């Protein structure tokens, strides 16, 4: 059973967690620069500050598992194995983007990687993973083409504190609990829905407590501690795989930046921001790795250098990817030709 003690983990695993968090942070910083430089036409919702959640959650997942994400989705997608070059290409609105420039930041998806998709509708992805879990259950029960792609899997949805007030949240949790589906509902409570603080949008503090409405397990993780997230998530995943049903997992965290690129976030008290900045998930995990002699100073630089190169290459790849032909806009409304199951 994994826990919060560094010694219980494989050093490479720990290094990968660190790496992935830094990758997300730098990706988001770079995306913001690239947007300011005019390379990205759409809007962005930076994930900076919440990296431990995406990385801790996805580290507990395997090949046959699926995630659905949100408007603040880059972190989830990177943590699940999304490649920066195809992500930048998508943000650049180029042909090599994951969605061939049709989706943009809000809609990056790749079912082969287990990514059902980011989502522009708050709460919109929650019912989808209930369905994904239904498909998984069906694959566990019966052999049909594609079964091998999801049998034994779990499905996971990320959503925010704000989203936990949408009807889709309630309906989906009820359904997943009723059918004992292998779903983990990951609520990233970053204390704000847009410009509205949690106490102005709901009367509870612990969103995990809403699990009781469905007789579902509710767990809370320190969303700024990647190992804690991983540890708690592992419990939830085990339960789901064993057929014990879904979990509502709340990760307490904070976004460092505004709601979207450009929002100065003046609505947040200075002390609050400072409190959370001091809990930076990357700094703190880095410190622990140093203290545990698992990474040396120069190792951090190596990570940064490697990521810098990845992102420079990715941006270059994106910049060189062809613009879509405007006529492509008329394609893909319907599946043009269909032989057998489209995806799995």
């Amino acid at each position, binding site marked *: 059973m994994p826990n919060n003690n560094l010694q219980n983990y494989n050093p490479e695993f720990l290094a990968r967690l660190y790496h992935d968090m830094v990758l997300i942070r730098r990706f988001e910083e770079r995306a913001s620069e690239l947007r300011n430089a005019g390379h990205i036409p759409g809007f962005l919702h930076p994930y900076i500050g919440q990296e431990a959640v995406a990385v801790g959650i996805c580290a507990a997942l395997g090949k046959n598992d699926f995630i659905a994400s949100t408007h603040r989705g880059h972190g989830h997608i990177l943590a699940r194995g999304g490649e920066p070059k195809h992500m930048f290409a998508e943000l650049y609105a180029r042909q090599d983007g994951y969605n061939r420039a049709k*989706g943009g930041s809000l*809609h990056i998806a790749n079912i082969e990687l287990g990514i059902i998709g980011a989502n*522009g509708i708050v709460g919109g992805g929650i019912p*989808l*993973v*209930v369905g*994904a879990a239904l498909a998984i259950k069906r694959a566990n029960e019966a052999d049909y083409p594609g079964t091998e*792609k999801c049998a034994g899997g779990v499905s996971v949805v990320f959503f925010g504190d704000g989203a936990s007030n949408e009807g889709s949240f309630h309906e989906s949790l009820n359904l997943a609990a009723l059918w004992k589906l292998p779903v983990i509902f990951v609520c990233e409570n970053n204390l704000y829905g847009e410009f509205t603080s949690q106490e102005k949008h709901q009367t509870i503090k612990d969103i995990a407590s809403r699990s009781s409405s469905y007789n579902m397990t509710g767990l809370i993780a320190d969303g700024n501690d990647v190992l804690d997230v991983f540890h708690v998530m592992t419990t939830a995943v085990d339960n789901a795989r064993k057929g014990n049903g879904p979990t509502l997992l709340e990760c307490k965290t904070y976004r460092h930046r505004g709601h979207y690129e450009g929002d100065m976030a003046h609505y947040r008290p200075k002390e609050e921001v400072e409190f959370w900045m001091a809990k930076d998930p990357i700094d703190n995990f880095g410190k622990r790795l140093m203290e545990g002699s698992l990474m040396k100073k120069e190792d951090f630089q190596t990570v940064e250098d490697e990521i810098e190169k990845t992102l420079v290459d990715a941006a270059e790849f994106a910049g060189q990817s062809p613009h879509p032909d405007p006529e492509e806009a008329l394609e893909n409304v319907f*599946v043009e030709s269909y032989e057998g199951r*489209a995806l799995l």
Partner: protein
Amino acid sequence: MSEVATRRISYSQALNEALSEEMERDPSVLMLGEDVAAPGGVFGVTKGLYEKFGENRVLDTPISEEAMVGAALGASLLGVPTVTEIMFGDFVTLAMDQLVNQAAKFHYMTGGRTSAPMVVRMVTGTAGATAAQHSQSLESWFTHTPGLKVVTASTPYEAKGLLKSAIRDPDPVMFFEHKLLYNSKGDVPEGEYTLPLGEGAVVREGTDVTVVAYLNMLPKVLQAAKKLDREGISVEVWNPRSLVPFDRAGLERTLSKTGRLVIVHEAPRRSGFGAEIAAIAAEEYFDSLKAPICRLGGANTPIPYAPEMENRVIPGVENIIEAVRQTLR
């Protein structure tokens, strides 16, 4: 056409056969809905399927239309086709986000890299004093939502053939049934068959005027056509079957023959699908038109409770006859 053995069965049985055959053909297909399992659906369409396919494939959902449709979509994105019943079409209002912002757009938003083979069946139309929230005909909305296919079934033959095609279709299909048709009977082939989406049918040949109709307006139009025949007016009745995709060639053929167009549907006239058909004709077949187009639709009102008022807001045989006569004046 070679002789095909047929039987007379009801519309509702035809739907049931389509569901049963497709679930047999493809072991992955799932069915969802409120009270569709042991109860067999409030209109009895899914009777026996639970017994046949078991609780893993025929699922009763709680009363939560948004999650139900979203779950259907999620499963279909992973390659598990779904058929979801919305008990009354009016309740689709609760699942609009999952249908419009999610299901309709997934294939497109992902640059063609996903597919959502899902069918949403729903019953539509006015009957039996069920009043404003259980009587609507909402198909037009979905024709205005790119990414959704929209199918109407007007006879047992169509019900079975179109539903089977819809289930095999790789795209989300909104499948409209009509309350008053469930007990109607018709000839249905013995063996396996499907009807393609996007192909209309001339239901009755004629030369003076084309009347377009679907769902429960089709039998009314046929009655009207019979009566008009006695007046020496020859009515061609054309049924588009699927509204999206729409059989333009079929419309063109009948219009170039008759040059006159009456469109009848139960949904409110304003911005109903009749407007789209009229607009297509006024744009593309303007020169074949010998007279103003005439749309006959439901009144632009909610559906009232009292039967005499209910009748007033839905086109009747007499209204259809009058419209045809007027077009010929």
